[in-house]
């Protein structure tokens, strides 16, 4: 057996109230490609960030080539020969490709404090050539397409090779997401080649890829490492079963839904498309129906929701609201048409932490709470009290600051914001239960069902398929910007596996 290159033992990490990672132990040997798979929110990215030194673990120990390490920043990990490609964009748009690849590690390209551009471009060219990428190192990064930027980020991760005498350790978080087949092939080929001289941790939601390039696979669920498989003997089915877990969710929050699906059409989209995001999306959203969108990052689900809320206009296709062709100029136009949106980033977009619970609830419909001269605080409080009871928001009072509430209760406030006024026509929920515990999650989902019963048309992006199946009447599965499957939950009874297959 070859020596261990990277070892993590009992890693735990908490973000606020969420335990993102729970005692994860993992081992990467020399010249081995290790896959990490799991649903959204299973903790894959957190694990990678810990291994890369971007964040510190609350507990646990990382060791590199047998020596225990404690990194203060990403640079320390880089010095130890660890190269990373994060999922989020990590390139600087305004500078050249070469600068991005060698950022912070220019080495021989800087002499006596003076940048030698030719040397810099030459070094970058070597990195790019290793991946067979034909991008000029002098190109300005923001002029590249999304997939080109993805490849540059990959080249950047590999550039660690030039800096370390040891075999490098490369961490890749979804390196193939949003790439087309040709580029995916290039990336996978590069990973295969890396096996000769490096250790790789490969995170991807495309299970076929993982099975193809990896030697061993760790399966994560709810922040824990639930299984370790040999890639040669494992199958996509087996991995999916492990990812979803054995305890298939029982639908605690729903009764019957089938009747609602007969409701009239609220919003209809025909052949909707946006370049690089989604294409040919034809869907009908009905009053009283909860429509769940399932898809991995880059599948177009989130982008579609942005269009529904008027953030990004579609480049092709038509939208019909109550049968009338409609163009949403911007989000306030959407809100004016009673299409509202509860964002996933509640801290930055959902609630205003410094303001009171009551003020947060009424801020979107403040005009309705104005008396002749000023805001009618009496009525504002009454309404706030009502929704605090309805949604079971745990707050000392309606005047408490929202930032003092727990994440789940903040999310309830964000939801209540759209309920205090007139009923919205359409409610878009972006991961409403993200980071919530079981109880808060159930409250939120119950509130969603309640609203659907009142005739609101609801679109939901959920963190887990459990949630999605528990709350939706219809599930639309998207992959690579297109609808890959449609299920009526009551009629078809799709299994989680079936949906996962549509996603990957």
């Amino acid at each position, binding site marked *: 057996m070859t020596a261990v290159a990277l070892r993590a033992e009992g890693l735990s990490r908490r973000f606020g109230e969420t335990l993102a990672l729970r005692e994860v132990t993992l081992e990467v040997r020399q010249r081995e490609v290790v896959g990490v798979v799991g649903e959204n929110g299973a903790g894959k990215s957190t694990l990678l960030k810990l291994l890369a030194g971007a964040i510190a673990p609350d507990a646990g120990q990382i060791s590199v080539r047998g020596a225990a390490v404690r990194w203060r*920043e990403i640079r320390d990990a880089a010095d130890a020969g660890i190269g990373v490609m994060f999922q989020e964009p990590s390139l600087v748009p305004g500078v050249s490709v070469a600068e991005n690849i060698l950022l912070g590690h220019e080495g021989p390209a800087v002499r006596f404090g003076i940048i030698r551009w030719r040397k810099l471009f030459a070094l970058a060219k070597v990195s790019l050539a290793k991946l067979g990428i034909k991008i000029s190192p002098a190109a300005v990064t923001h002029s590249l397409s999304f997939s080109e930027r993805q490849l540059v980020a990959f080249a950047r991760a590999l550039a660690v090779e030039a800096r370390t005498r040891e075999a490098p350790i490369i961490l890749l978080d979804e390196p193939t997401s949003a790439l087309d087949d040709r580029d995916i092939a290039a990336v996978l080929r590069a990973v295969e080649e890396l096996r000769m001289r490096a250790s790789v941790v490969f995170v991807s939601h495309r299970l076929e890829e993982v099975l193809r390039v990896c030697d061993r696979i760790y399966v994560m669920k709810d922040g824990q490492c639930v299984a370790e498989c040999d890639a040669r003997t494992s199958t996509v089915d087996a991995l999916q079963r492990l990812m979803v877990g054995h305890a298939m969710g029982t639908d605690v929050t729903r009764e019957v839904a089938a009747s609602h699906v007969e409701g009239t059409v609220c919003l209809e989209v025909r052949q909707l498309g946006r370049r690089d995001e989604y294409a040919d999306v034809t869907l009908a959203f009905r009053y009283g129906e909860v429509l769940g969108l399932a898809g991995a990052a880059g599948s177009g689900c989130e982008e579609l929701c942005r269009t529904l809320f008027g*953030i990004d206009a579609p480049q092709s296709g038509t939208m019909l609201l109550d049968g009338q062709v409609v163009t949403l100029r911007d989000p306030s136009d959407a809100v004016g048409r009673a299409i509202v949106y509860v964002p996933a980033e509640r801290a930055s977009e959902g609630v205003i932490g410094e303001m009171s619970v009551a003020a947060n609830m009424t801020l979107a419909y403040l005009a309705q709470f104005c008396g002749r001269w000023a805001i009618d605080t009496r009525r504002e409080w009454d309404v706030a009290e009502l929704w605090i009871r309805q949604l079971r928001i745990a707050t000392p009072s309606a005047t408490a600051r929202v930032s003092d509430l727990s994440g789940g209760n903040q999310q309830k406030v964000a939801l209540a914001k759209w309920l205090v006024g007139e009923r919205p026509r359409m409610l878009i929920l972006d991961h409403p239960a993200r980071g919530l515990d079981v109880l808060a999650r159930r409250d939120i989902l119950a509130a969603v069902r309640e609203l659907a019963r009142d005739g609101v048309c609801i679109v939901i992006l959920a963190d887990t398929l459990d949630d999605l199946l528990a709350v939706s009447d219809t599930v639309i599965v998207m992959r690579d910007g297109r609808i890959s499957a449609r299920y009526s939950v009551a009629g078809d009874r799709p299994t989680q596996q079936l949906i996962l297959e549509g996603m990957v």
Partner: protein
Amino acid sequence: MESRHRPGILSVAPTAVRGALRASGPLLALLALTIGFALADSDFATIANLRVILDSAAVPLVLAVGMTFVIRQGSIDLSVEGMMAACSLLFACVVANDRMQVNLGWFGLPAAAALGGVFGLANGLVVTRLRVPSFMATLGMGAIALGAAMLMSGDQPPLIQDPVLRQWGLGQTFGLPNLALAAASCLVVGLFVEQYTRLGRYGYVIGGAEGVARASGLDVDFYKVLGFAFAGLLIGLAAAMESARLGLGHVGIGEGKMLGTITAVVIGGTPLSGGSGSVRGSAVGVLTLAVLANGMVFIGATPDLEKAIQGAIVLVAVVVANWHLRDRLRIVK
């Protein structure tokens, strides 16, 4: 909705033509303005008047070169006027003058620049160590410097009596104002630092994506401090140049310079949010303002009207410069 942060999905990649237009837009505006004034008055486009314009652009250019680095890294420097006052007083007091028995001669220039550099360093340290936003930090530092300058000045501002320096401040070489030549050298230094040093290149990185810079292991704070110090150095130098021209150390020497400098930088294509822009563009911005101020006199505008028109042109320039960044959810503060 992580996708919001993906660059390029929101802003369509510029075509070559669009990109070229954007890059040369400020230059085209400058040319149009110059031609317009030349057509309006035949005395505008003379060698003598060109000299006047270059002379008036000299000190603003030195300031704008430094300010470009500060704005590009996503900061702002509002201490220009106070720092210029302090550096002017120091300069006047260390060269041959009517108050003190020191005479550093030419070394007065580096002395003034050094004081500016120290102030800039202090700016940077307050911003990075004490985590005060640069807006407030430099505003405060400017007030401190102005106070110090007032103390140094007293009732009677020191007069510069070094004939060589006076001649430098007022005279010409090869038919060009000396100060304009000095400013041109600063421009060359600025261009070099921008293109060939990490201070320059990391300025783009830090202003463009500070998170990425930190995640890449850059010592962001170090380069930020360096940016402020570099700007301070040039502010000190600019103060010395203006003092040599005036012949005295003067508390009000920087009056109006701060806004003019920031305006020139923004007109020249550096967004206040940082991340892009160039010293070259800022130089064009400075010349635009100089031509504007000069041309206004020719077409008979009063100083008040000149201010108003200058303001209007600045607004138009900023709108044009930022046009491609329009996005429905972009937050403008």
